[in-house]
Each structure stands twice: as C-alpha cells, then as structure tokens.
C-alpha cells in the first residue's frame, strides 16, 4: 500500500502520465465549454434586443427602426458571434453544439426577423453563413451554422411574426399582416415535411405545436378584420374587401 500511494504522489508511471494527459484534455475541454456558454448567453441577450427593436416598427418609422435593428445585429455579429468563431474549430462545431445552440438559435431568429421585415423574404442559411465567413481566420475552417440550429431558430421566428402581425392589424396594416400569415403558413408547411428528418426532433415537435398556435392566432385576427370589414362593403362601396381598414380614412385624433 505504501508503495502504491507513493507511486501516485511522487514518482512517475505510465498510468500517471496517461492520466495527466486525460486531465489536461478534460480541463481544456471544460474551460472551452464554459467560454462558449458565456458567448452564447451574450448572443442571446443581444439578439433579443434586436428583436425588440424590430417590434418598434410602425407605418411611419420603418426605415429608421429597421436601420437601427440592422446596425445592432451587425454589432452582435461582430462583437459576440465572433467570440464563438474564435473558440470553435473542427469537431467543436458538433461536440459543443449544446453549449452554443441557444445563442445561435436566437441569433437566427433576430437575423431572419430583421430580414423579413426589410425584404419580405426568408433570409437563407447560406446567406447567414456567408456573413460569418468574414469573421474567420481564412486559414482555419470557418464556423458555419448547421441546418438544425437554423430550423430551430426559424421555429421561434414564427412566434415573433405572430406578435408583429397582431400589432400591425391594430394599426391597420392588414396587407402586411396577411403577408406574414402567408409566410408563416409556408414555413409551417415546409417544416411539417422536414421535422421527421431532423436529428433530434423532440424539441422541434413542441415548437411545431406552438407554431401552429401562432398561425391560427394570425388567421383568427385576419378573420375578425375580414368579417368586420365585409359587413360594410356595400356601405363603403369598397372593391377590395381585404384591405378595408386602409380604405377607411385615417382617424383624426
């Protein structure tokens, strides 16, 4: 016994050498994971701010609001996503995915949200990944967001779009709301076909339920605007029942 404990405390042995290596490996890995988690939290909270910025949109301040949102988003990319890019290389992309996935999802949510409000289209994964290329040291394999995180972020996007649609309807931007409705329906339908193929579809399945709720909330809102508007088509003589609210002269307050 004496010898044994000695051997592990002072003298060297192959086992001890090997375990010294394992120890270093685990320490390095855990420390990197911690740094990645922190970077992910930063990305999350700052992406959320971008999302709130976009929600400040209204008929009259579109350019201004979206301009600021894009600037903020760029700052998230340059300051915080670049942290991830610095940390992650090679096998880390998948090994540490759970550590950074929440942040990346929120970032996807913010980027696609901005982009939809600006262009009315879906910002694609390739486009996002292209912007990340510039952050990387060209000699290293660049960080590329994977399809799964992109799709999970997209699922959350629909929740934000629902909130946006409800708000837009109150301000009479029915056409914008209807555009959102079509867009969200399309995403929902496309995802219906994709979800079963996803690596670990459990999270996504709950998100799909929430997404269907969001779609229906928008549909119900469009419905109530529509029936309310239809009631007076003859009265107003409007030829376009779908944009009845915008047909009503602006309310003077």
């Amino acid at each position, binding site marked *: 016994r004496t010898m044994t404990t000695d051997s592990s405390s002072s003298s060297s042995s192959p086992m001890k050498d090997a375990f010294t290596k394992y120890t270093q490996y685990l320490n390095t890995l855990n420390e990197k994971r911690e740094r990645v988690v922190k970077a992910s939290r930063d990305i999350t909270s700052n992406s*959320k*701010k971008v999302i*709130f910025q976009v*929600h*400040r949109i*209204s008929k009259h301040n579109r350019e201004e609001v979206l301009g600021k949102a894009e600037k903020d988003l760029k700052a998230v990319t340059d300051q915080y996503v670049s942290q991830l890019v610095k940390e992650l290389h090679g096998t880390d992309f998948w090994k540490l995915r759970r550590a950074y996935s929440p942040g990346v999802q929120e970032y996807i949510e913010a980027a696609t949200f901005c982009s939809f409000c600006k262009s009315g289209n879906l910002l694609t994964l390739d486009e996002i990944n292209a912007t990340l290329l510039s952050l990387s040291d060209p000699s290293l394999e660049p960080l590329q967001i994977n399809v799964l995180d992109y799709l999970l972020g997209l699922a959350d996007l629909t929740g934000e779009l629902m*909130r946006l649609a*409800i*708000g837009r*309807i*109150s*301000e*009479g931007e029915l056409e914008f709301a209807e555009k959102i409705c079509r867009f969200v329906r399309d995403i929902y339908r496309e995802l219906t076909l994709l979800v079963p193929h996803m690596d670990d579809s459990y999270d996504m399945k709950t998100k799909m339920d929430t997404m269907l709720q969001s779609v229906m909330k928008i549909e119900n*809102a469009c419905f*109530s*605007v529509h029936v*309310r508007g239809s*009631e*007076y088509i003859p*009265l*107003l003589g409007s030829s376009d029942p779908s944009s009845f*609210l915008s047909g*009503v002269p602006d*309310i*003077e*307050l």
Partner: protein
Amino acid sequence: PSLEKQFEDFRVQLEDSGSLRERIRAVVMEIESTTRLIHANLLLVHQSRPTPELLEKAKAQVGVLKEQYNRLAVVLSECPGQYYRYHGDWRSETQTVVSLIAFMHWLETGTLLMHSEAEEMLGLNNSEFNLDIEDYLVGICFMSNELPRYVVNQVTAGDYDCPRKVLKFLTDLHAAFRMLNLRNDFLRKKFDGMKYDLKRVEEVHYDVKIRGLAATGDAIGEQGIKGQS
C-alpha cells in the same frame, strides 16, 4: 458545541424571518381585502353607473391602502436591505393594486398613472420600501386588459366617443411599452396580451366609426374620461 451554537443562531434568525413573514402576510391579506373592495366598486363602471361617485368611494379606499402599505414599510424597515427577500409575498397583490389605481387615474384624467405618481398614491415615495418597476409595469398591463371590456360596455350604454379616447390612450401606451427590452418572463407575456386589447378596442372603434356613431367633435382635453362627461 460550535456546530450546535451556529445552528441555534440560524434557528433564531430563521424563526425571526418566519414571524416577519407572518406579519407581512397579515398586512398583505388586508391589502388584498381592500383591493377586493375597490375592485367590486370599479366593476360597476361596466354597468354604466355614474363614474364620479364610484371614483369617490374608490379613492377613500386608496387612503386605506396607503395606510396599509405604510405598515408594510414599517415591518420591512426591521430588516434593511431585504426588500427583495420577501418581495414575492406582496408582489402579485401590488400588481393588482397598481392596475386598480391606474384605472381610476385614467378614468379621472385620461392619462397614464406614472410610476412616481403610483408611489405617491401608496405613500411609497419617501421610504426604502418603494414600488418595484416591474410590478408597476405588470400592473399597467393588467389595467390595459380591462379596457376592451370597458369600451364594449360603454358603447352598449351609448357612449360612442369612448372607443376613440381609449384607442388613443392604448396606442400611446403600447408604443411606450415597445421601448422596453424584455426577457422571456411574466412581464413579456403580459405585454404580449396588450396587443389583443389594442386590437379589440380598434375593432370597436371601427364598428362605431363605420356606423357614423362616433362624435364628430374633437375637443377632449387631458381631463378625465368620465369625470366631466
């Protein structure tokens, strides 16, 4: 010995804290009871009872609330710096209180009750015991939830100008809330609900407008919504 001594000390501290909590609970139950009276009173606006009278009665009760919050502050003053330790014990009741006094204030003046005004009404402005801003904001959301019902019942009772006023107020309020960066928490959820209030009021306003029922005159000052009508 040292071990037992320390745990004995802890026991005393925790029991003190427990009895403090009991005292808080007692005051909070009183606050809740007063709140219920105010609420019952204010509910009558949905039945189109004369508002000034209702407000009169409700204001008397706010005095009671003030006294109760004062007592709560006294209790809390025994444990300086521990406001947030016990915060959960009066949080939800205070949010309701804010919603009620903000509704009263709006009925009377047509404007939003500010945080500092709310603190003043409850006598919380010059003590360490103040009104948590998130509680204030949640309370304002609760108030917003009452407005669609109010508008519907006012229109039913023949007040066709009400939707316009409420719509303006709620639009401004919603715009102000949008300045906040919220986490995924209770307040965010409540704020999301405000969009539906706005939408519903918009609908009623549309109903009234489209039928030509809305008043054409435009002269509302910043006085009360009902106080002067």
